[in-house]
């Protein structure tokens, strides 16, 4: 599958030629599939539209509380995953690159946790010293 994403050495053009010969020579399914990569992009594109519509409808129907937040997060992660994996071709890159790029942002969640505690404490002191909002 790594060939799909072209390594910048003109590999992709070779694959395209090979893919056309595929029915005659009987190459495995994974390579034949590369003959229609445009379709893959269109499918992902359609899914991004569907997921965006879904996340907009969450707001349109005015869902509340944990249902709203979990739906927003689910649609967000699915969209981000599709963009990174297919549009940015991360699904076909070697793991050494994928982990080097994707793991560090996930560590930001530690920072998020710290700031949630910090912000809760700030709110507590504000309420204790200034009372509820104006």
């Amino acid at each position, binding site marked *: 599958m790594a060939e799909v994403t*072209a390594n910048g050495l003109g590999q*992709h053009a070779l694959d395209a030629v090979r893919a056309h010969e595929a029915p005659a020579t009987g190459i495995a399914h994974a390579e034949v599939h590369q003959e229609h990569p445009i379709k893959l*992009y269109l499918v992902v594109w359609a899914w991004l539209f569907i997921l965006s519509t879904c996340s907009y409808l969450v*707001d349109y129907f005015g869902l509340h509380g944990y249902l709203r937040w979990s739906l927003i997060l689910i649609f967000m992660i699915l969209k981000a995953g599709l963009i990174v994996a297919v549009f940015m071709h991360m699904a076909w890159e070697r793991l050494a690159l994928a982990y080097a790029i994707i793991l560090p942002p996930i560590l930001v969640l530690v920072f998020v946790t710290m700031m949630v505690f910090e*912000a809760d404490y700030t709110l507590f002191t*504000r309420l204790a010293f200034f009372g509820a909002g104006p």
Partner: protein
Amino acid sequence: MAETLTHIGQTEPRPAGWQGIAADWSSDQRAFKNVSWGKAMMWIFLLSDTFIFGCFLLSYMTARISTRVPWPNPSEVFALRIGGSDIPLILIAIMTFVLISSSGTMAMAVNFGYRRDRRKTAILMLLTAALGATFVGMQAFEWTKLITEGVRPWGNPWGAAQFGSSFFMITGFHGTHVTIGVIFLIIVARKVWRGDFDTGRRGFFTSRTGRYENVEIMGLYWHFVDLVWVFIFAFFYLW
């Protein structure tokens, strides 16, 4: 699977999975085997940009949690009056669809670039740039609307003062990224159209010859801009 050139020019298969990570990173060699330096550096730049936007969204989260004044309801703030009724968040939804469409055309441009279809690549890149410019235009409209309604970085008519500063900082920085992307899309599209990557013409700034991989690297940046919007849309507009 991926192959790498040995020092005597032979190709040998690389191990996959966890063994692949250890083998790629170890023993004094380049870590990203089948990725050119240009693509690797774009990824690392995007990683650093992720931290910038991550910090913006973090500070927004901290401000929103810690304020004792109610946060303005984005659903109402960004509603538009169309045909006599207020439709919540409609402008932002349209902006989202515009940016996703631009990501789709960009992905197709990369594809046609590797097929050496110069005409289609350039047209799709210019279409991407046009959609990006549309997005920035709608953002300018949104800013104008909010500013005339009295939103300022230090206050607004509806609630917590931090709403304005968070909004202008996050969307402003994102809009700047989109604008820079549009400019570079036009530059790369012109190179493709002129056939620079086929004739080996040198760039005016770097004096280097380019390859069709430049289109993919440009695409990485553009998809990242779309990616950031996914998070801004979820956390700032929908939350």
